[in-house]
């Protein structure tokens, strides 16, 4: 038996370190208005949410469509607890400054956002996790819709500000270090989301490589066989559901930081579908794939395909079809092609270290 090589792991660490260094360097050198940073910030957020969804759909085999609902809970908890006390009368102008009159540090609020989402996941999981695949999908989707309505209810106003938006809480840009004159000395607004997402995804990877992770994968592959091997199905499914929702909640809080405002009406099923499609494009069952496709998805929709939405003139000829909305049509077609013909997505079930292993094997041949 050949000793397991440590080289792929080392290479992976080097790549991750290089990416973080590059992000940090780019932020200091390029103008902060560059599209690159929009893509990186939103991409990091979506990467975390996509990986959390993959943990459930790809690794445990639970087809849940409640992701947007859990993100919304996270986003709201984060925003509610971090709006500075002095800004509350402005934000909650219709509700006499709101119910809560203190604010928590960002990190505490982030963890709280995750815990709140996990708590709701636990509650809804009690009845819903007993259901089979497609019924479970619809039930979780329904749960997300119920939460959305509940948050917008006028009587919840003192807490959630009803259907009005929450704002003025710390966003990514507040992480930049400023000098006494208010000029930015060190830009951190892109590195921070990378760090949050990196730590969370790292934790998910650790979980997947542990005994629990193997139990989850065995449930995905064959529930009955897993149960026969002594795996407690209900316990493991609940665990996976709560952990996935925890990170979806943290991801929701990051989305709140990215957008600088939170409003319940944007956390629709369409958002869940978008994340699901990201997971599918990346490869159901691959963390690396989800991360990669998140950045690709965001870059394509926010940046690279933008030109499709505007009139383009090549020479004296106006290119036909191009007008507002065409980008999304092209996008949908790409997605359908992936879904129909490249069902494995970008990575299949492979991870970053696996790529180096395969390359080495080829070299030996």
């Amino acid at each position: 038996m050949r000793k397991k090589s440590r080289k792929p792991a080392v290479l992976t660490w080097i790549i991750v370190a290089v990416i973080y260094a590059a992000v940090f360097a780019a932020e200091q050198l390029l103008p902060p208005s560059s599209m690159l940073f929009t893509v990186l910030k939103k991409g990091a957020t979506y990467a975390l949410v996509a990986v959390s969804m993959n943990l459930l759909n790809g690794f445990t085999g639970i087809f849940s469509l409640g992701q947007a609902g859990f993100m919304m809970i996270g986003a709201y908890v984060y925003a509610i607890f971090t709006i500075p006390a002095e800004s509350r009368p402005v934000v909650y102008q219709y509700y006499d400054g709101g119910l809560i009159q203190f604010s928590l540090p960002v990190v505490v609020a982030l963890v709280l956002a995750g815990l709140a989402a996990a708590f709701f996941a636990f509650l809804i999981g009690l009845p819903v996790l007993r259901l089979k695949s497609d019924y479970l999908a619809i039930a979780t989707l329904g749960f997300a819709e119920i939460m959305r309505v509940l948050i917008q209810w006028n009587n919840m106003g003192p807490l959630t500000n009803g259907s009005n938006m929450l704002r003025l809480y710390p966003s990514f840009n507040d992480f930049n270090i400023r000098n006494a004159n208010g000029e930015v000395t060190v830009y951190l607004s892109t590195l921070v989301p990378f760090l949050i997402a990196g730590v969370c995804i790292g934790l998910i990877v650790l979980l997947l490589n542990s005994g629990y992770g193997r139990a989850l994968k065995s449930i995905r592959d064959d529930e009955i066989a897993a149960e026969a091997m002594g795996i407690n199905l209900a316990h493991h499914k609940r665990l996976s559901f709560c952990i996935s929702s925890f990170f979806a909640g943290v991801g929701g809080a990051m989305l709140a930081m990215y957008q600088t405002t939170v409003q319940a009406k944007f956390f629709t099923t369409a958002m869940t579908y978008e994340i699901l499609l990201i997971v599918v494009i990346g490869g159901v069952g691959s963390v690396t794939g989800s991360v990669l496709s998140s950045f690709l998805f965001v870059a394509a929709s926010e940046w690279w395909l933008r030109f499709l939405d505007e009139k383009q003139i090549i020479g004296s000829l106006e290119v036909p079809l191009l007008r507002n909305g065409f980008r999304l049509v092209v996008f949908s077609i790409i997605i359908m092609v992936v879904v129909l013909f490249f069902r494995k997505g970008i990575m299949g079930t492979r991870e970053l270290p696996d790529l180096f292993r395969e390359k080495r094997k080829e070299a030996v041949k």
Partner: protein
Amino acid sequence: MWDTVFPYLLSGISVGGQYALIAIGYTMVYGILRLINFAHGDVFMAAGIIMVYIAASGIPLWISVPLVLIITAAVGFVIERVAYKPLRSAPRMSAMISAIGVSYTLQNLVLYITGGLNKQYPTIPVISDSVRIGPATTKVVTIVTPVLVILLVVALVLLISKTKIGMAMRAVSKDFETAQLMGIKINSVISTTFVIGSFLAGVGSVLYFTNYPTVIQTSGAMPGLKAFVAAVFGGIGSIPGAVVGAFIIGIMENLIKGLDVILFKAGLVSKPLGLAIFSDAFTFALLIIILVVKPTGLFGEKTTDKV
């Protein structure tokens, strides 16, 4: 009291009938393919948009309505051939993801065509006229809907129980592989199912958009989900179940919309509680309760999973 409740009840029956027409499509497809056709609500919306554009091109109404129904049926046929047929042997999750992809595509396509603007649905004479029933004023479509639904359902049930294609459909939904071995042309049976489902969704859209006359790319999402809940509530796979479920959901939803007014008039509350926004949430709460208490729904058949 009755005077307050009656208008809500009436519009509930009307909306319920429209949901029923969509729900039949869900339930038939699920019965045969075991697939939740997430795109069905969007087919319904597409039928609305097609009608808008056909009417705008000046074609007279007695041609345009049948034309819309035919085009909608064709859309359903094409969706099945392109997006579901290649995945028939793939895991169920793949087909469901493909359905979500189709829904996304249809919405974006309509967004592109309309530019994301609300489109005014053409007024169809006779059924959009006002009529007075007891204490309520409503459109003729409110009365036409339940009658039409019952006629169509009777026709459909006859088709399924008496004709050869109906027998084939029943066989396929019982056992996919055996039906194939018995010489049933599975592809044509599945296509027929999609054509019938989309046709009924088209009829539903004509009725629905006469009541709520604006169409936008997301118009199909909510009615679609509710019709699906209706199908589950009635027992998925069962056509009478879907119809009963749809009427119950339509009526309950409208009663909740009017609950504030009803409670206020009855003197039970002194100020409105803003309960109307829960009309959508109620549908989903009902879904979760039904799934937990009686997953097979009101009329569903009990299935057992084999190892």
